[in-house]
């Protein structure tokens, strides 16, 4: 006899609809970078290094009134089950761009005219939601580098899987689910710096997912703050 256990509202990995995967953030892990962070969110492992503000040698890209942020998001060949071909692809170019745009509003770029801030995001292990993990870790690394910022940036995804609106999609939920909604916010003011949507949601579901994602962001923000304070022995 086959018994099918339906645990109401519980997800495939046993989480509640509004539950995050286990999260760990550490700041200042790299000796030679100006700022760095390591983040684990469930099966995701992300390492971020920040260099700068430093002199920018590409004249035509220099801004006379502010610094620019350059991001590179890169997945290690061993980060996913089937070996990923190394080097930039369409997806990683897109994520690099949206990451730098998500981080930009928080940093006081006008304090460093003509310079550049370089952010390197390396995905060591991927299990869904790496762009959000990358942004969250990058913001910790920026703060660790001593850059003046309005607020930390925190990012989290919500979406719809098995007909239910859920927080922090895992890889299976992302692939087989109906929708994915990554959000990045500045938690103090609640300003949204990144909002993407993949899949279909009704307006009501969208509202619900957005609220859920913001709630998740605020939870992650606490961990970010702890990580930075812990770096200086508190």
């Amino acid at each position: 006899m086959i018994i099918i256990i339906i645990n109401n509202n519980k997800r495939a990995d046993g989480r509640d609809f509004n539950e995050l995967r286990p999260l760990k953030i550490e700041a200042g892990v790299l000796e030679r970078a100006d700022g760095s962070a390591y983040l684990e969110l469930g099966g995701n492992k992300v390492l971020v290094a920040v260099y700068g503000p430093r002199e920018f040698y590409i004249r035509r890209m220099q801004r006379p009134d502010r610094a620019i942020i350059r991001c590179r998001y890169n997945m290690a060949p061993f980060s996913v089950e089937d070996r990923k071909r190394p080097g930039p692809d369409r997806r990683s170019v897109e994520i690099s761009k949206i990451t730098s745009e998500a981080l930009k509003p928080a940093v006081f770029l006008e304090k460093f005219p003509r310079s550049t801030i370089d952010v390197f995001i390396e995905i060591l292990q991927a299990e869904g939601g790496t762009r959000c993990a990358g942004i969250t870790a990058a913001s910790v690394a920026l703060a660790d580098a001593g850059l003046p910022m309005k607020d930390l940036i925190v990012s989290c995804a919500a979406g719809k899987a098995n007909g239910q609106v859920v927080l922090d999609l895992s890889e299976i939920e992302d692939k087989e689910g109906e929708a994915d909604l990554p959000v990045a916010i500045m938690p103090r003011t609640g300003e949204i710096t990144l909002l993407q949507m993949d899949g279909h949601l009704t307006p009501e579901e969208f509202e619900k997912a957005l609220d859920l994602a913001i709630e998740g962001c605020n939870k992650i923000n606490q961990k970010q703050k702890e990580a930075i304070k812990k770096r200086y022995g508190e």
Partner: protein
Amino acid sequence: MIFVKDKDIVIPGDILAENEYHTGRGTFKEENKICSSVVGLIAIRNKKISVIPLQSKYIPKKGDVVIGEITDIRFSMWNLDINSPYSGILPASEVFGKEKRELNSVFNVGDVLFLRVVDVDEVKKVKLGLKGRGLGKFRDGILISITPTKVPRLIGKKGSMINMIKDHTKCEIVVGQNGVVWVKGEPAMERIAEKVIKTIEKEAHTSGLTDRVRDMLSELCGEEKEETPEKENKELPE
């Protein structure tokens, strides 16, 4: 209304105070709330709240004295790396006056100079000069770089910290405001000075540092002193 104490660690976006307080370095005002913009320690001086950053890059300021390394020789100036997002220039006229001479006959690529920031314009072009007491080229010695915000801590009150290191290690030490430190002395002593300076950088935000540094110095230099008399004793019977 104030939400923090003196010497608290804050992070970007933390709300520090409201209304009657003023914004200092490392803070910004949003509506009537004063927020921190960097990771640092709170400093409150009569109603003015500042955050002293724990890590930063050197932003050149007119009048600062800095240590720089020559990276390039141009037609009428030298380019220098001053441990900052902005490279500095040393015009030939600052060195020769009106006289015309070959630039590489005086300073070459790789030379380390002690300079003054003469001018910084709005596009952050940094003009350096060599006029002033003690400014010029360094010979030998080692360079150590620390975070520029920790330079005051390394110097100490009226130079107490730096003089203590000088006394113990018998090294010549020059500190640039850009966080570059030049040390010259006996190789073993240079290494001790480097170790001590790195410790100060790491523990700059903790209290009772001067005493700990004194202990560390006497411990490190003490070992050296013990070794020397032994050698002398051995030599004496001969």
